[in-house]
């Protein structure tokens, strides 16, 4: 732990040495029982053996590591100070330029997203992973309404994802509904659940709200596990129909026309994957446009004002109840849409897909991305989905790597990757004049 506490003031070499020695001492004290002593199995009996060289190496690594960390943090601090001083000189021009850069990155990311399945059309793994990233992007954008804009800490967001997925699962397997028919119904269902969660928690905020939403997420999961007649219990719902291309299924050629036979293409299982990819890309983009527009409308500004100061909102005549419920309902609806897509993509859903772990990852995406930032959510989704994927080679160290990356992001960028907040309207247009 001590290695992560970064010094407040730039330090002299002597101070750094002293600090590193202190770390080494702590490492030594901790290391004696943990590394220095070990038990060996000798003919069935346990005997304590010593490993002093290993302990020495551990202490040396701590000493050197701490020294290096302090040195690096001092250098970085000096650089940042220099940069801030330089930035102050050109303060006027900066925000507009930053906004333009972000917009540019956004369009570039969109172009990459559109071209990706064409470039990797025969690479199942890439398209599949990209689809997963987009599901999380969409969930992140949905949760961003609740957490990032309205400032309501929701630890049970996965419940709405589950409601959407199960609504589609049941409607399609029991009543034979198609994907597009079920989508609005599932969204409305999730929104209704959002209001059911929102209503009793209107007076709660912060930690208390987080606990109730956490409980709500678990309630939904436990109901799904135990209400076997409805949800199939732990076995979940199987053989959920895959979405078709306007009625043309993605199947090997048969009697009925299929996507491949209709367009005169050779059948390939990747066609469905690519279609699913573009489907979630479309849904995610719609979500993005919807949320960005909402943010610029009175209700969106009221969400942000509610996050900033609820009492001031009431004093301005804003009905806090309606504003909060609309945030819960809309966030839940978007989660429900993502759930429908998830069910259609997997073809199989079970309560195991909707554990607290998922809520935590979605929340991490919003927080790491920068509360309220749409592009930040994309970047954070990339990091949080790709990092465990890339980390597969590290086997059991994967989660360690994942955790370390999250801690580093929070140290370097405490407000999230993109903490910059773009105003919803401006009096002075960037570049001068009105």
């Amino acid at each position, binding site marked *: 732990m001590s290695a992560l506490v970064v010094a407040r003031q730039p330090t002299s070499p002597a101070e750094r040495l002293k600090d590193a020695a202190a770390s080494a001492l702590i490492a030594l004290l901790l290391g004696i029982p943990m590394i220095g002593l070990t038990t060996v199995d000798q003919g069935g009996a346990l005997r304590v053996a010593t490993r002093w060289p290993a302990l020495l190496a551990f202490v040396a690594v701590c000493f050197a590591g701490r020294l290096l960390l302090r040195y690096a943090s001092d250098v970085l601090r000096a650089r940042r100070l220099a940069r801030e001083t330089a930035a102050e000189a050109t303060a006027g021009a900066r925000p507009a330029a930053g906004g333009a850069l972000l917009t540019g990155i956004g369009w570039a990311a969109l172009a990459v997203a559109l071209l990706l399945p064409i470039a990797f059309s025969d690479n199942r793994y890439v398209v599949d992973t990209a689809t997963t990233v987009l599901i999380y992007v969409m969930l992140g954008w949905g949760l961003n309404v609740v957490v990032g804009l309205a400032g309501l800490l929701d630890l049970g967001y996965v419940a709405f994802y589950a409601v959407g997925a199960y609504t589609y699962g049941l409607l399609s397997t029991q009543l034979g509904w198609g994907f597009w028919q079920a989508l609005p119904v599932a969204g409305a269902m999730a929104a209704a659940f959002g209001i059911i969660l929102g209503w009793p928690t209107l007076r709660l905020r912060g930690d208390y709200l987080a606990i109730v939403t956490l409980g709500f997420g678990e309630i939904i999961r436990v109901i799904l596990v135990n209400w076997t007649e409805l949800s199939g219990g732990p076995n979940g719902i199987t053989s959920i129909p895959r979405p078709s291309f306007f009625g043309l299924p993605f199947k090997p050629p048969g009697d009925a026309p299929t996507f491949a036979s209709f367009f005169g293409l050779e059948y390939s299982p990747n066609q469905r994957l690519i279609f699913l990819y573009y489907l979630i890309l479309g849904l995610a983009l719609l979500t993005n446009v919807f949320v960005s527009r909402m943010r610029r409308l*009175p209700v969106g*500004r009221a969400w942000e004002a509610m996050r900033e100061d609820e009492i001031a909102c009431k*004093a301005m005549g*804003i009905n806090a109840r309606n504003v909060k419920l609309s945030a819960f309902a809309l966030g839940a609806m978007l989660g429900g849409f993502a759930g429908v897509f998830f069910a259609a993509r997997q073809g199989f859903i079970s309560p195991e897909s909707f554990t607290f772990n998922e809520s935590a990852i979605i929340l991490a995406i919003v927080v790491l991305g920068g509360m309220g930032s749409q592009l930040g959510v994309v970047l954070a989704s990339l990091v949080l989905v790709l990092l465990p994927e890339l980390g597969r080679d590290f086997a059991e160290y994967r989660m360690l790597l994942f955790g370390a990356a999250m801690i580093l992001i929070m140290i370097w960028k405490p407000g999230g990757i993109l903490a910059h*907040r773009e105003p919803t309207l401006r*009096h002075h247009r960037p570049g001068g004049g009105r």
Partner: protein
Amino acid sequence: MTPATTPLLSVERLTMRFGGLLAIDDLSLDVGARRITGVIGPNGAGKTTFFNCLTGFYKPTTGSVRLNHPQRGSMRLEQLASHEVARKAQVVRTFQNIRLFPQMTVLENLIVAQHNMLQSASRFSLAGLLGLPGYRRAEQAAIDKAVGWLTRLHLIDKADTAAGALPYGMQRRIEIARALCVDPLLLCLDEPAAGLNPRESAELNVLLKHLAADEGIAILLIEHDMSVVMNVSDHICVLNYGRKIAEGSPAEVQRDPNVIKAYLGEEDADEELATEVRP
């Protein structure tokens, strides 16, 4: 009674009790339209509690607060929720410890204050989502109103700056500007001069007089800065331990023995405080 003599707000026998503590004790007070009414008293006299009762943040234990709205008739403020007090009765308040939306820009703060007008113009977001002209016009009108107030309060240069990043005195003015965007009939200001320098206080005096005389906004003013209260108030009510101990014009209140006793104590009069009460 002719409409001219009917007070805008009449508080009758208002009592607020927190457990064993009597924060406001049988307070009656009239606030006239277009007038500035000062509410003063030592710390803990119940001034802010009184504001909280007026604006729906507290439900008074007993008593009534009646507002005679020129268009909407008489309403009982103590029965309204806090957002309805601002929306229906047009009684708007500011806070002793400034409550802005710090990460939002100054202009956005003032637009949020016009939420109800914009929300109905956006037809519950549908017209707004589609960008229909009716909503665009309403939004432009809201911006124009906000810009108007920002210009008059010398804040227009800071319109696009995050409100929380501005100096204290400016934040006080922004809070007043934001309250003005709600179109108040009665503006309740809780220590608007706290933390202002003498020049800023003098500007505040001019602004308050202008609002009452030219804009026809009644002002209820809690203030410790006697250079503001005595200067601008038409009428002053003095509270101590939740009771009204004096009421009248600034000159009358300053002569009142009860007020002098409350501020200075019974025996040993402190010179510094004496000058504060009698500038």
